[in-house]
C-alpha cells in the first residue's frame, strides 16, 4: 500500500523501531532505578535485557532512514551529514540531535551492563550505570515524543496534525518497548541459578506486565479520544480520519491489527495473569508460550499502528483547493 507515497516502509519501520528501542530503554532503566539506587538492584537482570536490546533497533531504524533519503538514492552517500551542520526548530533537526545523543548514550549504557567490562572498574561501571539511567530516561522519552511531533507538525496533513498523536506514540513506544524486553527475556532466558533468581524473574516480569496493561489501557483511551474528536469536527480532520473509521480504506487493517491483535487481546491475556497477584497476592507465574505470544502480538500491533498512521496521513489532505 505504500507505493507512490513519499514516506514508505523505511520510515514506518524507523518510527516503530526507534519508538520501541527508546521505550525499552526508558522502561527498563526506570524499573532498574526502582530496584534501589545500588548497582545490583533487584531488577538488574531485566534492565540488562533492556540495555542490550535497545540500541540495535534504534540504530537499524536510523540507517533505514538514510537509505530512503532522496540524496542517498541519487548517489550522494554522505549528504545526510548536512543534518549535523545546523540546529533549527524543525522537528527533524531536533530529532536528529536527540536520536544521536540517545544512540551514543545507549551504547555506553549497554557497556555498563557487561560483566567485568574491560577498561573500567566494576565500581566505576556501577556508578556510571546509575548515573546514565537517570540521564537516559528523558532522552528516551524525547525520542519517543519527537516521532509523533515530527508527523504532527504539519497543518497540510490533517490526520497527523493532532497534539494527541505524539502522546499516542509515546505510550505505544513504552508498551512496545516493554514487550520487546519481555520477548527477548522469554526467548533467551539464561539460566536461573536458584529459586530466588527465578522468583526475581517473575517479580520483574509482573511489574512489566502490570505496567503494560495500564499503558495499553491508556493507549486505547488515547486512540478513542483521537478518533472521537476527529470525527466530531467537520472538514479536513473529519475527512482524514474517516479512512480508519468503519467504511474507510484502512478501517479493517486498523481495527483488526492495531486494536484487536495489538491492544485488546494482549491486554486481556496480561490482565488474566496480573489480576490474581494484584488482587489476591497470589504468585505471578506466566507460561513461557504466553510470554512469547503476547509481546509478539503487541509488537505486531505497534508496527501496524505506525503503518496505518503513516499511510493514512499521506493519502488524505486538506479538503478543497
Amino acid at each position: 500500500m505504500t507505493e507512490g507515497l513519499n514516506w514508505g516502509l523505511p520510515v514506518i519501520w524507523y518510527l516503530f523501531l526507534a519508538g520501541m528501542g527508546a521505550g525499552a530503554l526508558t522502561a527498563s532503566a526506570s524499573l532498574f532505578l526502582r530496584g534501589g539506587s545500588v548497582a545490583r538492584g533487584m531488577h538488574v537482570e531485566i534492565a540488562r535485557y533492556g540495555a542490550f536490546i535497545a540500541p540495535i533497533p534504534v540504530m537499524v531504524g536510523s540507517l533505514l532512514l538514510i537509505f530512503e533519503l532522496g540524496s542517498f538514492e541519487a548517489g550522494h552517500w554522505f549528504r545526510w551529514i548536512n543534518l549535523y551542520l545546523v540546529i533549527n526548530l524543525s522537528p527533524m533537526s531536533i530529532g536528529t540531535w536527540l536520536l544521536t545523543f540517545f544512540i551514543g548514550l545507549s551504547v555506553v549504557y549497554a557497556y555498563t551492563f557487561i560483566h567485568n567490562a574491560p577498561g573500567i572498574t566494576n565500581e566505576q561501571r556501577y556508578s556510571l550505570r546509575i548515573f546514565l539511567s537517570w540521564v537516559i530516561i528523558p532522552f528516551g522519552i524525547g525520542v519517543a515524543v519527537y516521532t509523533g511531533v515530527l508527523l504532527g507538525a504539519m497543518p497540510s496533513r490533517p490526520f497527523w496534525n493532532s497534539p494527541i498523536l505524539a502522546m499516542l506514540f509515546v505510550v505505544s513506544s513504552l508498551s512496545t518497548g516493554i514487550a520487546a524486553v519481555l520477548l527477548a527475556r522469554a526467548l533467551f532466558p539464561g539460566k536461573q541459578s536458584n529459586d530466588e533468581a527465578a522468583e526475581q524473574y517473575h517479580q520483574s516480569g509482573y511489574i512489566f506486565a502490570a505496567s503494560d496493561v495500564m499503558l495499553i489501557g491508556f493507549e486505547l483511551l488515547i486512540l478513542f479520544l483521537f478518533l472521537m474528536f476527529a470525527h466530531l469536527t467537520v472538514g479536513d480532520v473529519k475527512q482524514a480520519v474517516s479512512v480508519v473509521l468503519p467504511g474507510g480504506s484502512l478501517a479493517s487493517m486498523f481495527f483488526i491489527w492495531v486494536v484487536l491483535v495489538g491492544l485488546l487481546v494482549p491486554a486481556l491475556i496480561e490482565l488474566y495473569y496480573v489480576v490474581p497477584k494484584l488482587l489476591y497476592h497470589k504468585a505471578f507465574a506466566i507460561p513461557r508460550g504466553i510470554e512469547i505470544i503476547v509481546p509478539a502480538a503487541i509488537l505486531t500491533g505497534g508496527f501496524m499502528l505506525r503503518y496505518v498512521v503513516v499511510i493514512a496521513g499521506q493519502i488524505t489532505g486538506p479538503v478543497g483547493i
Partner: protein
Amino acid sequence: MDAEVKMKNGDEGKSALSRRDFFGAAGAATLTAGAVALSNTADAVTAKSKIQYGMLIDTRRCSGCQACSVACKAEFDVPLGATRSWVEYVEKGTYPDVSRNFLPRLCNHCSEPLCVSVCPTGATYKRKEDGIVVTDSDVCIGCKYCLQACPYDARFINHKTGSADKCDFCLHRVSQGVVPACVNTCEGRARIFGDINDPNSEISRLIASNPVTVLRKGQGTKPNVYYIAADHADETDATNGQYINVTTHREQAERR
C-alpha cells in the same frame, strides 16, 4: 529579448525600465544565495522582504493549452513524471449545465512557507531580497519533509539531483530582468508577474482592482500566487451526486 518581454507583458516602456533596474539589483544579490543557505531559517521566514515577487493568474484568459507546463519542463529539464508547473482541468455539471475551467498551478512562494519551517538542513529558505522560496540542491538531503508539509503538493524529489525541487519563479531569468518562462510563453497573457509589495506595479494594481483568491487560504501560508476567477471546486465538494472531475495532468492523479 527584453523588448519582446515588454510587449508580451503589456508593460509601458517606463515601468519596464524601472523594473529591469531592480531586477538587476536583485541579480547581484543572487550571487550570495548559496552562502546564506545554511543560515538560520527562522530569520528567513519571519523577516519581511522588501520585494515580494508574486504572480496573478487570470483564469478567464487561460485556455488550458499547457504551454506553460511545456515551457517549464524545457527551461529546467524537469525529469519525466515530475512537474514544477502544471494546469488542472476542472469539469463539472451535467449537460447542458456544464463547465470546464483551467487552474494553472505552481509554487505559491508563501509568506509563511511551511516547507521552510520543517526543513532540517536549511536547504529550503525564503530569499530576503525578493521573497522567492528556493531549495539549495547542494544542501538538501532529500528527506521529503517539505513534500509532506506543502499544502499545494508543489514539491517533488528530483531523482537526478536527489534534492527536493519545485518552481523557483525562474530565479535565473528573473534575476536577469526577464519574466519567468511560463509568463513569457502564455499565449493568452493569463499570467502577470511582478512585485506585489510595490503598490504601483501592474500586478499590485490588478490585485487591487479585481476580485482575487488564493488557494487553500485556510492553511495560513499566505500564498503570493493570486487568481482571478479561479474555480475552487474539488472532487470532495461533489455532493448530491453532482459531477465534478479534476484532471491534474501530473503523476499525482489526485490533488491531496
